[in-house]
């Protein structure tokens, strides 16, 4: 694979006060791939993502989006970089007082210099991309969790970003809806060629979507495995990794 490395994280260190959260993390994401950040609860995967989209500044290390080091860049340049990324938060983070259509229209109207009618047409196109036709005028509180994810996805995709960050896209959804969201993510990756970075601990999503993955661990505060998900499951000698992928508690591993 000779693709460009679109995101590079170099020697990232994260601290909250005196607590060390992530210790010296380095990895890179290639253009157009689906990259998964795996880890148990509390392993710092969401924290890692929040740093990668510039919501928090690292204690040390660099994060490159394209050629820009977002941890050390002027406000303007950072703002420019932001237009190339889309983020779907775990809670979908739709603005509660706006309809689905208004939520999706928000970035389009702000950054694309289009007239109201053109923005409305764009919103319609984006909503049909995620399969939300007919829900434009619903408030976020009136739609289900899966639809909220779709609406959040439509908003994240509004400006045709090069990189899409998804925080636990299938959390809190039933298996059927979760797999629908997974196929939507695959569809977006294949048709739009968007690089997708997913933070998740959902095994089904990991194996359906993941082309490459890294696994974070709470105790070592570092990457303990990387490679394809299947490889991590089958060939990794680390018991923590095997336990995670076989979904077994430590005891049964000892007995078997």
């Amino acid at each position, binding site marked *: 694979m000779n693709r460009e490395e679109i995101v590079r994280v170099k020697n990232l260190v994260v601290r909250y006060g005196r607590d060390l959260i992530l210790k010296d993390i380095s990895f890179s994401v290639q253009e157009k791939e689906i990259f998964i950040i795996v880890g148990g609860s509390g392993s710092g995967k969401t924290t890692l993502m929040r740093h990668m989209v510039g919501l928090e500044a690292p204690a040390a290390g660099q994060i490159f989006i394209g050629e820009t080091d977002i941890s050390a860049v002027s406000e303007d340049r950072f703002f420019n970089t932001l237009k*190339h990324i889309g983020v779907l938060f775990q809670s979908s983070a739709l603005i509660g007082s706006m309809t689905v259509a208004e939520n999706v229209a928000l970035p389009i109207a702000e950054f694309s210099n289009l007239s109201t009618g053109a923005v409305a047409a764009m919103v319609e196109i984006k909503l049909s991309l995620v399969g939300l036709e007919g829900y434009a005028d619903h408030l976020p509180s009136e739609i289900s969790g899966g639809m909220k994810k779709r609406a959040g996805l439509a908003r994240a995709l509004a400006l045709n970003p090069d990189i899409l960050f998804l925080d636990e896209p299938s959390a809190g959804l039933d298996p059927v809806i979760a797999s629908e969201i997974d196929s939507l993510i695959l569809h977006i990756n294949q048709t739009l060629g968007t690089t997708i970075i997913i933070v998740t601990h959902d095994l089904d999503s990991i194996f359906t979507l993941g082309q490459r993955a890294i696994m974070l661990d709470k105790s070592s505060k570092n990457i303990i495995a990387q490679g394809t998900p299947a490889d991590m499951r089958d060939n990794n000698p680390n018991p923590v990794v095997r336990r995670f992928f076989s979904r077994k508690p430590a005891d049964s591993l000892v007995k078997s």
Partner: protein
Amino acid sequence: MSRESNQQNAGFDIHEDGDGTITFFFHGRLDMSTAPACLRRLSSIKSRRPPKLLIVDLAEVSRMDDYGAMVILQLMQKLNLGSDSLEFANADESHQKTLSRVDFGRTARAMPFGRPGNIIVQLGESSINAVKGALFFVEFIGSMVFAFLKAIKQPRSFRANDTIRYMKTTGVDALPVVGLISFLLGLVMAFMSSLQLSQFGANIYVASLVGVAMVSELGPIMTAIIVSGRSGSAYAAEISTMKISEEIDALAVMGFDPNLFLVIPRMIAAMVVVPILTVFSNIFAIAGGMTIGVFILDLSPGMYMARTIEALTLFEIMWGLLKALVFAVLIALTGCFRGFQAKGGADAVGNAATSAVVTSIFLIILFDSIFAVIRSYW
């Protein structure tokens, strides 16, 4: 990472055939960076009779995304065309991929953004909502009465600790602000009335004026307004937060009566505390009046107090306290009611708090007028 705007190679050429076919040759990029320029050029085209066939030629298009598709959609709307008279020419594989993601027929028909209905519909809807709100309020008062009866029948279900906590937040914590405001009110009242009364040499009546006005009218009202701003809004915010985060449903599922659990303690706390605060308010206001009387009007403190006591009757004081009690019920009731009414997201909490204050101040003034009418026809 290629989205720098290069509008000079945005655009299209138009070719019209005699047989009603119109062909748009797009060239360069047809994506997010060029869409605004294309649309601007489109809008300058004069509207015309719809052609039989619209051909969109993509041979010279280097890159296309769904913003480009949107340009074609707008073109269709401009020409008043359905998707059945739209044809694409020379679309390569990547263009096909983009085009396949957009349902031209459906999207062109879809009405983007819902508009609010016309004025009659809006009027009807808001009338229905008003009636619903009133019914809900009646229901709420009814369930409150039942909760009260239950609390009397089963004293164990009454939450004494919560009640005492609310007495502290509603009463004790409000003392400084009630005291200060009442003291200043007394000062101002005494000073302003002395300006008039001193013309007749009737300075001594300042004492009875401040005393009577405070005890029978302003004391209960000022206290109630302060409490509704401090605590009525807090009740609404607390309960609406619990409502939207499903905590109230959780209580109901565990077998608690939400009214008994949340409203009765607040109600009793307010009923105990507001009359006491009113007494404090009266005392502070009289002290404020006396400050003016002693330092500016040269009255002796003893004389001031004697006039005040002479002017006040026990009935007057009890009447004021009865009002305070009624206001307390109103404050707790509207605060809790607005909280239970909350629906939706986090903004509902703000709305609940605001409308609790507005409603309770309105009701306080309304009931105060009713009390005045009752007294005049006693």
